[in-house]
Every structure is written in structure tokens, then in C-alpha cells.
């Protein structure tokens, strides 16, 4: 039970109420959720239905796979990676639209 609590405390997408996290962890969690939401919104704009489904499954898989990460630096790296993916996707969409 105790180890489970310790693991949960470090999770960036945690089930515990925010009061159990430090401020930094709380802000990081918010950032992760924010970028997840932005990514899903951008994926919605993809014209092809099959591509949309593939991208959504990919995004879901990526975020869920790293859900248990506890190292702050690792999480920051992953968030930056996600942001790069998001920018790439937005650029491709802009190109496709023009």
C-alpha cells in the first residue's frame, strides 16, 4: 500500500487529489494534461478518418505508456517531445489546407 502511494505521488497523470502533489508536480501535471488536450484537438482537424483514428490511438498509447514516470526531467523531456510532435502536426495540417 505504501509503495503504491509513493509511485502514485510521482505520477504525472495522477489519480490522487492535487493536494498530495508538490506545486511543481501539480503544474507539470497540468501541463501534461493541457498538451494532451491540445494534441487531441489538433488530431480532430485531420481530414482523413483512418489517419485520425491512427493518430488518436498513437497519442493515447504514448501518454498512457509513460503515465507512471516519476523523474521530473524525464517528464519534461517527454512533454517537449509531445510539443514537437504537436507542432509538426499543426504544420502539416496548415500545409494540407493551403
Amino acid at each position, binding site marked *: 500500500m505504501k509503495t503504491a502511494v509513493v509511485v502514485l505521488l510521482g505520477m504525472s497523470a495522477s489519480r490522487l487529489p492535487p493536494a498530495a502533489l508538490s506545486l511543481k508536480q501539480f503544474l507539470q501535471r497540468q501541463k501534461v494534461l493541457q498538451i494532451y488536450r491540445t494534441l*487531441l484537438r489538433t488530431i480532430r482537424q485531420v481530414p482523413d478518418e483512418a489517419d485520425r483514428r491512427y493518430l488518436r490511438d498513437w497519442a493515447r498509447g504514448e501518454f498512457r505508456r509513460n503515465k507512471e514516470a516519476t523523474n521530473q526531467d524525464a517528464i519534461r523531456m517527454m512533454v517537449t517531445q509531445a510539443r514537437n510532435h504537436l507542432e509538426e502536426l499543426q504544420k502539416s495540417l496548415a500545409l494540407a489546407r493551403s
Partner: protein
Amino acid sequence: MAARVLQQCVRSFARPSLRLCTRNVAVRATATPAVFIHRPLSFAAESPRTRLFGQSRYGDLPPLTLETIKERVMYVLKLYDKINPEKLQTSSHFMKDLGLDSLDQVEIIMAMEDEFGFEIPDAEAEKLMTPEEIVQYIADKKDVYE
């Protein structure tokens, strides 16, 4: 079956020139071509709303009531594969009762955005933790009073 009969009744109510729905449903189905409102729904091709208001003659969407909002919210939630439909109630908390995490909650709110066709900003989206709260929020935003 009951839904089809209800659908026929709604149609016949909207067009008084048709006779009552006591007539044969099969005959009615072939005689009156249905005009369904097609809207992009992320989870299903047909929702209770398009079934009930199948034949609309107006450009606008059917009016929202607290009851229809609740129905649609519960319908979308039941389609979500991580939720057990038997345990789902309007007061069930996503994280405490249904065992979902915050990523699931983001996905659920996105599905609600798809269903109702308007965007829910981040700050307010993360506070919606039960179906009841979602219904209240949408009713607030859409000015639905009862």
C-alpha cells in the same frame, strides 16, 4: 420497436395531415422517407436525439432540454469502453467511483465537445468530474432552464 413507434408518432404529430400511428409501422416506413440530421459524432452514427427528431424541417438543431442533455451525456459515456455501463449513474465520480484517470477525463470531455458541438475551455473542463456536473455545465452554457 417502441422507439420506432414513438418516432412515427412524433412525425405524425409534426405533420397533422398524416393519420395516427395506429397504422401499420411497416407501411409508414416505406411511405415516408426519413430525413435524418447528420452530425459528426465521434462515438456513434446515431444518437437518441436523431432518432426522436428524425424528421426536422428546420435548419436549426432541435431544442435542448435538461432531459435530452442528460440522455445524450449518458449515451456517450456508455459508449466509452473504459466505463462499465451498469455502474454508471449521474452522480458517479469519474475518478473515485468509476476508476478512471485524468487522461480518461480529458478524453471524455473531448467526446462531450464532439457531441454538443462547442468547445469547453481547459480551466472549466478539468473541474467536470461527474455526469451531473457535465449536464449542469452544458445547460449553463446553452442557456437551458427548467
